[in-house]
Structure formats: structure tokens, C-alpha cells
């Protein structure tokens, strides 16, 4: 059964490939039937697991659908992306993709905007440390003996629910509007001339602030969960021993919270590396590329210039950098955690 459906799938693929390249007249208008054949094959594979392997197959069936799904949707497009990135494909040109070797690589080497975007990502990632401090502070406050805790928790959670696009409109466009935005009023009251996206530093800071506004709740909740899972006895013991609240935080709570903190920070960094929506909608990278993240830069490369081949190469390079960075980070963290404190 598996081989049968696999045969159908492969024949269809081959047939369609020939049709697309113009070597055969038999075929369909789109690749849709091939997709169906693939689904058929996947289903058959799942069923066959149970029939052939029995009990063991039933166990495999738990993981197999997800694995097939991810492999077909990630590995195949990635390979395809790798191919595109070495072509000079521009959607606006009629010729289609033509391999052009290392030309894109050379172009990237001289592209100051790309390097600038990478540099900005370093700033953006560095901002996570500030977010972490704020989030930790808020988590501590929420964990303290306070009334109306549920109310504050819901309110603090709200920014995370809002879509970055709405946020960029609500805050970036409306509240920071120079003429009549409420924040501009406030700044004017304090005696400054409001200009939030005039200078590169200021613009970058505003983007960081908006992004922080949406994602601080995320870290806060993870840290709060960590705080609530701390063993009460240890903290009480430190109090009995006469530690001040600052001492007990520094010597007891913070070290115990390290694993949670590391998880929260790493996940936050992963999310940060995908930062794009706010930048695309508020500044579209301006002024002069000062706020560009890699993602928003490539987004414009696709949409405005249709420069598919080059953009994909940039994305692939970015992926490689991210993988190296995250692996190094995790290695560093695990080594650092193992070290006796």
C-alpha cells in the first residue's frame, strides 16, 4: 500500500516536472494534484505503520504525523531556498531563475544596509537585558503580598495580546504623533521639542520601547511562575537568619531563579530575532536604515524590489548566523550553570 501510493506520488511528481519544464504535454495546470498524492502517501504510511509493526507502529503513530508535517514544510522549502539563494531571480524579470554562483555573496559583502541591519539586531538583542530587569521587578511586585493581584495580573498581561500591527498604529503612529499625540504633549510640558523618529538613536530607542511594551509581560509571567514555584522554607529560613530583604533577594532568590531566568531570556532572544512587524509599520526602516532589523530589511527587498534570489541569500546567511549564535549561547549558559556558584 505504501509503495503503491508512493509510486503514484513519484509518478505524478515526475510527470508534473516534465510538464513544467515543457518536455511533456501530459500534466495538470498546477501542482495541486501532486499535493494530494503526497497526502495520500503520508496517510498510507501512517496506516501501514500500525498494520505492519502492530503495537510498535501504534506508538510511532503518535510522532509520525507531526514529523511528516514539519519535514515536508521545513526541510523541503529550506533546500529550495538554498537553491534560490544562488540565483539572480527577480520576480519582476521574465527570465525566471538563473544560477549566478557567488555573485549574491559578493553583493552581500558590499551591502552596507545589510551589515547595518545586523548591527541593529545586536542593539535590539542587547535591549533584552533591560526588559529582563523590568520584568523581574514586576514579577517580584506581583509575587509580594498585595491586594487585587488578579486585576494587576490581567492588566499586565494585556499588551502581549495585542497584535504588533495594532500596537505600531496605536503607539507609534497615534500616541507619538508630533502635533497632537498625548506623549508629545507630555514631552512638550516637560520642556522638550518632541521628535521621536528624527534621530537614529531616538528612533531605535522608540522601536525598542514599543517592542518591550508588548513582550515584557511574556518574560514577567515566566519569571512569576518561577517565583511561585520557589520553596517557601528557604526564603523563610533566610529571614530567620536575619537577612534583609535585599540580601535574601541577592543571596537566595536570584540564584534559585537562574534556570528560569535563562529560559525566559533565551526564548525572548529567539522572539527578538524575528522582530519585524513594528518596524515595517512604523518607520519602515528609516531614518536611513537606523531602525532596520534583518527581517524588515529582507521584507522590503522582497516586496519593493522583488529581488528574490538576493533576499533569500540574505535570509539564509541570517539563519546560519542565528544558529551559530544560539548554539554558542546555549553552550555558554550550560557551562556557566554547571560551574559551582
Amino acid at each position: 500500500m505504501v509503495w503503491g501510493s508512493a509510486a503514484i506520488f513519484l509518478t505524478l511528481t515526475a510527470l508534473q516536472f516534465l510538464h513544467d519544464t515543457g518536455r511533456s504535454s501530459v500534466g495538470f495546470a498546477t501542482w495541486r494534484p501532486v499535493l494530494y498524492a503526497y497526502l495520500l502517501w503520508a496517510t498510507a504510511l501512517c496506516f501501514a505503520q500500525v498494520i505492519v509493526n502492530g503495537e510498535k507502529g501504534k506508538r510511532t503513530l503518535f510522532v509520525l504525523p507531526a514529523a511528516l508535517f514539519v519535514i515536508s514544510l521545513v526541510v523541503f522549502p529550506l533546500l529550495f531556498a538554498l537553491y534560490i539563494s544562488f540565483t539572480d531571480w527577480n520576480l519582476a524579470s521574465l527570465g525566471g531563475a538563473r544560477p549566478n554562483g557567488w555573485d549574491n555573496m559578493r553583493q552581500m559583502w558590499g551591502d552596507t544596509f545589510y551589515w547595518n541591519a545586523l548591527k541593529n539586531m545586536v542593539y535590539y538583542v542587547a535591549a533584552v537585558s533591560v526588559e529582563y530587569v523590568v520584568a523581574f521587578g514586576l514579577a517580584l511586585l506581583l509575587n509580594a503580598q498585595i491586594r487585587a493581584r488578579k486585576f494587576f495580573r490581567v492588566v499586565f498581561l494585556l499588551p502581549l495580546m495585542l497584535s504588533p500591527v495594532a500596537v505600531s498604529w496605536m503607539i507609534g503612529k497615534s500616541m507619538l504623533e508630533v502635533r497632537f499625540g498625548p506623549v508629545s504633549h507630555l514631552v512638550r510640558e516637560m520642556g522638550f521639542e518632541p521628535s521621536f523618529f528624527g534621530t537614529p538613536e531616538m528612533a531605535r530607542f522608540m522601536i525598542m520601547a514599543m517592542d518591550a511594551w508588548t513582550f515584557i509581560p511574556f518574560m514577567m509571567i515566566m519569571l512569576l511562575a518561577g517565583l511561585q514555584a520557589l520553596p517557601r522554607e528557604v526564603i523563610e529560613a533566610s529571614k530567620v537568619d536575619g537577612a534583609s530583604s535585599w540580601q535574601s533577594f541577592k543571596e537566595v532568590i536570584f540564584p534559585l531563579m537562574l534556570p528560569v531566568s535563562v529560559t525566559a531570556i533565551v526564548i525572548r532572544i529567539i522572539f527578538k530575532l524575528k522582530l519585524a512587524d513594528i518596524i515595517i509599520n512604523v518607520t519602515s526602516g528609516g531614518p536611513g536604515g537606523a531602525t532596520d532589523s534583518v527581517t524588515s530589511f529582507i521584507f522590503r527587498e522582497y516586496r519593493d524590489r522583488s529581488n528574490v534570489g538576493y533576499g533569500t541569500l540574505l535570509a539564509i546567511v541570517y539563519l546560519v548566523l542565528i544558529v551559530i549564535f544560539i548554539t554558542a549561547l546555549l553552550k555558554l549558559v550550560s557551562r556557566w550553570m554547571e560551574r559551582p556558584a
Partner: protein
Amino acid sequence: MSAIFKDHASDRQMQVKWWSSRVAIYGTLMLWAFICLFPIYWTLTTSFKLAPDVMRGNMIPFVDYTPKWKGWESLGLSPRLIGEVSTVREEFLKRFWNSAVVALSASTLAVVLGSLAAYGLSRFNYRFGFMKNSDISFFFLSQMILPPVVLALPFLVLYKSLNLLDSRIGLILLYTLMVLPIVIWIMRDQFQGIPVELEEAALVDGLGIWGAFLQIVLPIALPGMVAAFILSLVLCWNEYFFAALLTSTNATTLPVMVASQTGSQGINWWSMAALSSAAILPLILVAILLEKYIIKGMAAGAVK
């Protein structure tokens, strides 16, 4: 009794300290609550403003200005227009419906696939070639670091040839892929918290592996699944990047509609505000009603 002690100098000092710490704590909480709420308040009130009110920066409805339905009228959603046929409203409802369908089905798919995989990975030992359990888990979780830009273009081309461009199915598949690692992460944690003895008992009683999973484990893990579902719902509802690249007319979601409004003839502040409010209100409701689950979901992975 207590009166005597309160007169004592050191005791009074203690009280001052206690009060000042209270004030500091509540002050900070209030300040942050204000920071969180003000943008939402601003958007909601702006949607009831007219042009002069916006320009003057009026803040408080009924005091500074009289609320008008102008912003909502541009969506065809004011009391006056609700009974009439309105093309703008249809347009808006279509986008809203797209967002809802895509987010709901992608989350459902992700929770189903993710829970199965997470259960398998937390209970059985697998061997696919060189890959063991931890490798498979890592393979799934590592999808999280994949930046969307890398996949965007291959998918653009792929969907074009599959005739899935600008269709809901295409978006659903992508969003499922996007939230799957998060679901697996949460659910694996959930299943590891359920004692294995429960299933062993079920197996002894004659249920199969799948029977034990469906009848015994699933009901216990349901809160976790709800948490994972809501979290992915939020992520899918808000997604902009793929929606902007892969849809044009039919399958456009709300965020794309919001983003595309800032067009040619300046910004209609009131209608933008109404649109943004409409886009964020469902999630605000979700947050208020289901806050417990959201926090549970995010806490699941954090604490081992």
C-alpha cells in the same frame, strides 16, 4: 495592649517603613498598569472622536468632547448603519472571518499534532535511524529559531505552483508550522507531569495505547491543551509577516487590513482607531476571561 506598643519609638519607625514600602509597591504597580492600559484607552476613545477632537488632543469623553460614531461608521458598525447594507462592513467582516478561521483552525491542527507528538515523546522510546528521543524533541523545538524570512520566499513560490497563494489553507498550514514547537513544548511538560501508573492501570484493564491516551490521559491534560490552544490562537491572530506576503485579496487577515489603511490621503485617525479596536477587542476579551490558562501555558515551559 496594642496601643502601648504603638507608642514605642522603634515601633513607630517600623510602621513608617511598612507604609512607605506599601506606597512604593502600589505606586509602581499603578504606574505600570497605567502604561499598559493607556494605549488601549487612547485607541478606544479616539475611535469616537471627530477630526478637531483628535487635533486638539482631547482625552476624556463627555468632558473634553462629545463622542461620535464617525469612526465606527466608516466600518459600517454604528447604531445608525447597522441595519443597512454596507460594503465596508462586509469587507471588514470578511477580514475578521478570515482571521478567525485561520487562527482557529491552525491552532486546532497544531494542538492535535503537537499533543500527539509530545505524548509520544514523553512516554515511549523511539529510534528513527540515528535519532533518539532527545534528538527528535530537539528537532521539533529547534523550529522555533527558524526566522520567518527564510521560509517566506520558498513558500511564496511553492504556493504559487500549488495554487495555494492567497488562500486560507495556505496560511493555516504555515501558522500551524509556526506554533507547533510552542505547543509541543507546553504539552510535553504537561504529559511529564502525569504519572505513568495511570496508563499502566488502564493497560492492565484492557485498553490499548490509544485508548489509554484518549480516555485517561487526555481529560487530565485538557487544561494544558486549552492553554496551548489559546497561546497559539493569540500568535496566529496577530501574525502579520506571512499574511502580508502571501495574501492579496481573498484571504487577507485583520492585521494586514489594519496595516494597509495608512495609505494615500493621510490617516483617518478615527476610522483607524475603530479598526484597531475591533482587531484587538477579541483578544482583550480572551485575556480577561481566560487569563488563568494563558499564564498556565506560559508558565509550563518555564518551570521544570
